[in-house]
């Protein structure tokens, strides 16, 4: 071990293991995590013959598919062996393990993060029974297609149509324009064979807004695109080049009526539309992902500050006092200013993530019993938290990169790749300014409610104090 780094460890005033246990939740959880990491890493999936940064775009995808399949096979086996709920999946999807093995993103992530959760959240009991078993066993691989080439966060503007034909009891999917092509979904291009497609529902000549449909994209044996399905990859990106983002168009693609996810709204056999209790329920998958994202940001930042802080203890620079050795760069206050806020932010976001995760679970439990009261509050909160945490995380990783000087610019520092992953999160699941404005809409309404003397939900209750002063 480098002498300077060892000296730093010798002078630490607290028990490092105690803090690790605190971060993990308990000593048992740390041990579980260690065992999980050992099991996964001992398989050698992360070892590369040629560093992936020197591969072509196509080779990178092929390597990502190979690694993702091996990794998820292993995780599935561990899941069955330990019967531990979602912990292993969460660790692989957003945690340290996943990003260690699939350094530039995974083509299977959306299968677990969006396809399965949407089936769970928006399918009827019968639909869940039909689809979820096949999805868990990966007999089918799914993704989630909402965004279109011409429309992003404004989902009411989506153009893909699903028109019900009562004669055949089928929906007919169409992409009427170039701008209606689905654009972005991870795994869509060459990996998934099924997809949840969000489309404008038409029945009896009337449009009923956007609804989710399960659509088969590729033959289960040959993997060839099915008739009427136009599918491909969108091309190289700033980062996440292993995620296999795709485009998708439809030309009179017919799917059975049962493939519309009908937990909230329904289309009966004769084409009668039965309305959902709240149009906001369609947003639940996006909220789930935004909540998960906050936790992912902690992991990326923890990696970046670990790299930059250890490097700053080893690296020496300048000679401020004559006849004295060059100081460690960690001794410069400007370096501390760059790094320590990153360390604090990891803890701040981790605690905020666990707080909003608990809130998410409470609100979704309330939804099950038909109580929608706190849904707008959770939506507003998940929007702004996603925007602020991803922006702060990107800034933190970039600061860490800069704090390592020229060496931070090397891909072998892993800081550029980490920046690519973090800055991608600022873009997907809603562009940050748009998300902030969605929260603002809720805040303005809250203000108006407060002025009217109405009671506010907990996270905006502070507004009532000031509004009360204004009213008086």
């Amino acid at each position, binding site marked *: 071990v480098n002498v300077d780094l060892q000296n730093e460890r010798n002078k630490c005033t607290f028990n490092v293991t105690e803090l690790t246990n605190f971060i993990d939740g308990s000593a048992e959880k740390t041990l579980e995590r260690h065992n999980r990491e050992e099991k996964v890493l001992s398989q050698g999936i992360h070892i590369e013959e040629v560093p992936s940064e020197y591969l072509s775009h196509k080779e990178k995808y092929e390597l990502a598919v190979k690694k993702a399949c091996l990794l998820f096979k292993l995780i599935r086996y561990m899941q069955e062996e330990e019967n531990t709920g979602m912990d292993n999946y969460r660790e692989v999807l957003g945690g340290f393990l996943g990003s260690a093995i699939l350094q530039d993103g995974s083509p299977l992530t959306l299968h677990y993060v969006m396809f399965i959760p949407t089936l769970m959240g928006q399918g009827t009991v019968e639909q869940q029974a039909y689809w979820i078993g096949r999805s868990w066993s990966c007999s089918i691989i799914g993704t989630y297609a909402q965004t279109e080439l011409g429309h992003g966060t404004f989902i009411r503007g989506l153009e893909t149509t699903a028109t019900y034909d009562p004669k055949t009891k089928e929906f007919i999917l169409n992409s009427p324009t170039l701008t209606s092509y689905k654009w972005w979904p991870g795994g869509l291009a060459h990996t998934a064979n099924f997809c949840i497609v969000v489309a404008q529902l038409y029945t009896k000549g009337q449009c009923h807004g956007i609804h989710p449909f399960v659509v088969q994209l590729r033959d289960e044996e040959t993997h060839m695109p099915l008739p009427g399905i136009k599918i491909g990859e969108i091309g190289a990106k700033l980062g996440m080049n292993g995620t296999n983002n795709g485009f998708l168009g439809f030309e009179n693609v017919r799917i059975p009526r049962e493939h519309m996810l009908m937990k909230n709204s329904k289309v009966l056999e004769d084409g009668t539309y039965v309305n959902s209790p709240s149009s906001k329920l369609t947003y639940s998958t996006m909220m789930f992902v935004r909540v998960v994202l906050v936790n992912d940001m902690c992991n990326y930042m923890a990696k970046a500050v670990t790299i930059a802080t*250890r490097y700053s203890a080893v690296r020496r620079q300048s000679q401020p006092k004559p006849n004295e050795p060059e100081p460690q760069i960690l001794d410069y206050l400007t370096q501390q200013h760059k790094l320590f806020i990153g360390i604090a932010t990891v803890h*701040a976001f981790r605690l905020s993530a666990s707080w909003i995760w608990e809130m998410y679970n409470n609100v979704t439990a309330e939804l099950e019993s038909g109580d929608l009261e706190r849904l707008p509050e959770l939506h507003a909160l998940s929007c702004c938290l996603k925007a602020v945490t991803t922006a702060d995380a990107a800034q933190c990783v970039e600061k860490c990169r800069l704090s390592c000087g020229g060496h931070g610019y090397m891909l072998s520092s892993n800081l550029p790749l980490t920046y690519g992953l973090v800055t991608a999160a600022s873009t997907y699941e809603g562009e940050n300014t748009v998300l902030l404005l969605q*929260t603002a809409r809720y805040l303005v309404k809250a203000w108006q409610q407060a002025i009217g003397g109405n009671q506010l939900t907990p996270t905006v209750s502070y507004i009532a104090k000031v509004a009360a002063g204004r009213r008086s």
Partner: protein
Amino acid sequence: PPWDNTVEGIIDGFYRVACGKIALCVNNIEKRQKTGMSYEDAWNMTSVQLASASEAHCRAIIIATYYNEMEKRKADLSPALRQVLLQLVDLYIVYWALENVGDLLRYTSISERDIEQLQHWYEDLLSKIRPNAVGLVDAFDIRDEILHSALGAYDGRVYERLMAEALKSPLNAEPVNRTFHTHLKPFMQGKL
């Protein structure tokens, strides 16, 4: 109310900033509507302020949550660890106060002297955290295989690892690249 230069005071200040910004946005939208502008146009004209209000709301929530959640958990920690983690809470909150000094001046009664004290507090916190910096990141407990970085490995052998990674470049597999013969040499000899 008078400014309270404590962590609790700063959290309260952040809530006041968020509230003040929301109020101002509502006022501006209403004012614009009174001039005959539609609600949608008034909203768009105010959207820079609205995004800023939303961010202020989120900052207030994050710092308050960080503080409250740590308060709930601190009794379970040893005195040595508690001290370091509370220093980090203070650092985070004071950092964001200094980053938002303009907003605090506008919406609260913070003074120039309070800001100067915050700056000293922040610098003092950096110095206090300095001896534990490596311990704090070691506690994230990220294995080398996962960190995947020549600069951040646990043993700190940065320069050896950088060189080992450099040698993996495919260009280093042969002493002379074929482009020397196809382009570089003819170019240097004026024969290209």
